């Protein structure tokens, strides 16, 4: 079977035994990673879908051998500045063997939002990133559960600082974390029928159960969330219809036992990978996978979503806007640009998504809202700039316009382009002068910028 044939949508129903063509491999690598490098694509093409997903969910996070990230002649120190904290993470996203690990870490950082505002230090954020990573490295921690993640986030210095858990004290409850815990992190405000998932009283009672925690900075390099019984409200609380002298962990259990929780988390995770909302029966099926045995394991749910046929929907015409971080990494990988400069974090901010800098506690709105006239400009500029810090394409004397377009496309790893777009770019190439080496180089840069930074480069 030819490669061209493989990249077409298969006629029959999608089965886990499907052998992946280039389009399917690329789809998985965009949705579960940061776009395909040549090696990553080669690893998946021709493999069965099931095996590819098993590989993604069973391969530990190992950074491929690469020189340690350096700036200004010294190694990057994520604790030195916000820029370096972000660059350090971007470098891991770029060089990780298994992209799903960093992609899932990134998902958790958007879900369990913190921001470097409001007293959250670089140390807190860096430590928090490591915590989230444990719940994304599904090979190393196959039993990673949402429950344990919820416990540890609630006890983490970053979250205790960001949502005021450290000032939630018996007699003086602070409801900030308790409210967001239910609204944003675990349940949602209402169920799909519009019925509230909790009451204001539940918020207050949950806040009481979450009291008693403070940040121990005895060793400033390793801040620790500590339980202090003198600050804890030990009384009986009534949360979501249950009574007890709940504390952070037992109250978390009460919230996570609500049937709506599985529904909520299934939808959240689904929308990270798949554009079309899930059918009700699909949600029920995935929720059953997630709650089996009561442990709320992450790996089976992620694996089941990546094996849903909807992930390959519209395979001939990508239908999800790349979030800025995914787009940016994709450009860096396609151009083989260096990735250690301030302008790259500035570029992410202009595109609207700088890690650890969500607009508010609800995180990024995402979806269609990523694209505005100014962010489109920022995306285009980011591509241009990456192209110009990457190694220049070699000169091909006497190259025709058609060959120039082919080389630009191939040089970027053959990213998706609509047939209509290819025709327009071929026509543009034909308009461009190619008589001198400088003109031919300019033609390559122009075509590559239009491929990466133009409309078709924005979807995955």
């Amino acid at each position, binding site marked *: 079977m030819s490669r061209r044939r493989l990249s077409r949508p298969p006629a029959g129903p999608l089965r886990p035994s499907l052998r992946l063509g280039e389009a399917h491999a690329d789809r998985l690598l965009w949705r579960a990673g940061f776009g395909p490098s040549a090696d990553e694509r080669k690893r998946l093409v021709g493999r069965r879908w099931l095996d590819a997903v098993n590989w993604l969910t069973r391969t530990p996070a190992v950074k491929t051998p690469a020189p340690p990230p350096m*700036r*200004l*002649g010294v190694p990057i120190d994520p604790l030195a*500045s*916000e*820029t370096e904290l972000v660059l350090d993470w971007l470098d891991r996203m770029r060089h990780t063997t298994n992209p799903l690990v960093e992609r899932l870490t990134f998902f958790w950082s958007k879900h369990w939002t913190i921001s*470097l*505002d409001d007293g959250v230090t670089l140390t807190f954020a860096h430590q928090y990133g490591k915590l989230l990573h444990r719940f994304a490295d599904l090979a190393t921690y196959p039993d990673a559960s949402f429950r344990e993640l919820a416990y540890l986030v609630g006890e983490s210095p970053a979250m205790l600082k960001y949502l005021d858990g450290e000032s939630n004290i018996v007699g003086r409850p602070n409801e900030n974390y308790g409210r967001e815990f239910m609204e944003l992190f675990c349940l949602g405000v209402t169920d799909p029928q519009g019925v509230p998932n909790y009451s204001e009283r539940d918020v207050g009672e949950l806040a009481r159960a979450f009291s008693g925690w403070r940040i121990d900075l005895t060793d400033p390099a390793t801040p620790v969330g500590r339980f202090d019984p003198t600050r804890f409200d030990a009384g009986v609380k009534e949360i979501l219809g249950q009574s007890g002298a709940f504390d952070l962990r037992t109250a978390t259990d009460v919230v996570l036992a609500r049937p709506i929780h599985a529904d909520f988390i299934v939808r959240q995770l689904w929308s990270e990978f798949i*554009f079309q909302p899930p059918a009700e029966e699909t949600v029920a099926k995935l929720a059953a996978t997630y709650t089996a045995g009561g442990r709320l394991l992450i790996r089976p749910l992620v694996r089941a979503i990546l094996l849903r046929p909807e992930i390959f929907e*519209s395979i001939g*015409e*990508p*239908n*999800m*806007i790349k979030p800025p971080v995914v787009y940016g990494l994709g450009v860096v990988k396609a151009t083989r640009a260096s990735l250690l*400069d*301030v*302008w790259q974090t*500035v570029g992410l*901010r*202009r595109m609207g998504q700088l890690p650890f800098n969500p607009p508010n506690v609800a995180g990024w709105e995402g*979806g*269609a809202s990523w*694209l*505005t*006239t*100014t962010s*489109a*400009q920022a995306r*285009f*500029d980011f591509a*241009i*700039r990456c192209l*110009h810090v990457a190694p220049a394409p070699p000169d091909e004397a006497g190259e025709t316009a058609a060959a120039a377009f082919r080389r630009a496309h191939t040089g970027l790893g053959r990213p998706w382009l*609509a047939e*209509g*777009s290819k025709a*327009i*770019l071929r026509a*543009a190439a034909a*308009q*461009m*002068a190619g008589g001198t080496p*400088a*003109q031919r*180089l*300019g*033609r390559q*840069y*122009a075509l590559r*910028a*239009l491929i990466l*930074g*133009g*409309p*078709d480069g*924005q*979807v995955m």
Partner: protein
Amino acid sequence: MDDDAVRCTECEEIELARVRDQRPLGTMPLPAEALLGFPQGSDARTLSRRRLLRNGVAALATVYGSTRLPWESIWEAAIAEAAAGPQRAVVLLYLAGGNDGLGTMVPLGAQHSLLATHRPDVHRPLGPTVGTRVGVAGPLAGLSDWGLANCAVSAANGGDITVANQGLDVLWGSGNPANPDARLALFPAADYQPPNLSHFSSSDFWFAGALKPMSTGWAGRWLDLYGSQTNPLQGVSIDEALSKAMRTAGAPVASIASIPSVGFFLAGPTGTYPGPGGPEYAGIDPAATMRALSGVPRRASNTHLDRVRSTYGLATDVIGQLAPLAAAAAGANYPANSPLAAKLQTAAVVLGARLGTRIVTVHWGAFDTHAGQNVRHDRQLKELATCLSAFQADLSARGVEQDVVTLVYSEFGRRVRENASNGTDHGAGGLMGLVGSAVRGGLASAPPNIADLDARGNVKVETDFRSVYAAIISDWLGGDPAAVMPDFASVPALGRSMFR
């Protein structure tokens, strides 16, 4: 890090030019209408958010300050300022890295011979430029023993700049403060005592207007004391982030990266990357290509691709509508592919809109010429000279040149003796310049004496930079220099008045 180590100047420029710990409060859209000029009799009620934005957003301003202001109240303030009539403004143009004062304003005569012995390879020879070796053609009008590097001088005066009416010599004119043609004042050997040769410490001092680190900048403190509490456009950094000079204790200020959005230029006149020396893309209109790409058909159910394509289409439309802003004012003639030109053009648009802007900061350049100084310094100096000339013409075309002065400065000068890599290391006593139709030009402070260097081989500082700030505060912007700059009492005043 070692003061004198050779470093990557591009990275350093970025590092020096920004404040990473000043967090923005948010962004605000700048309506194209506001920048093109409000219609007569407008007020905030008629210019509702929706109405203002209907004609397109020219750019986003990032807002800083202590309190989040509602968008409407910001525009109410800006419109009120616009209606109040002309206000004086200063542009602070920072040459990052330490500009070589002695390679810019060059001694002639005996001092030149002495400089040549200190700098056999780096000094500028007397006479016209030969090949790539930029000389110094002759003395500035009114001076006998100081001239400018030819790369900053018009061909009419023997220099290398061939664009009509451009060059620092043109701004200098007769050099006689009594004459209105003298629009450039020069302050050689301006710095402070004792000089600190770390980029980071020294630029902090210049930004703070004090010889110690401070959490606010001198321009920011002036705004805190004498500025508005409601209009962030009173202080604008033309950058992705706020200049340290502009940091306030509470007053709102803003940063604007570019106006208008530069468009999908692959390389173009507004200085988009890759900038000078980059490849050209002849024969293609990127906007037309982008518009065609945005019109490619798609499947009906693909709402995200629809959003992408329609947004790219809208972006090309908005950019087209804003073409009047993108175009330099008639006669401005900025150099092509110049990042500095792009920044100054943006500054001119902001100042020309008269939205109450009093202070603008521009950070630019990679003047840390430890190695291969001549080529890099020549290129930047020429860009500086042509851009400053074009900026004056631009301000003039916008009718605000009488109200704007531009202060050009760097965190220090360079060592008199060259180093082993055809460069110079960090030195004391750089060159400041003040440009504007309202400026009384000419030589404004004592030049250095190369026969009388300090123990490290640097020129002795003749002028405290804060005395120039003080003149701007007391005689141009209005205010008490001592209230703005701590420890100001010890700084001697300039010997003459700077403004007409």
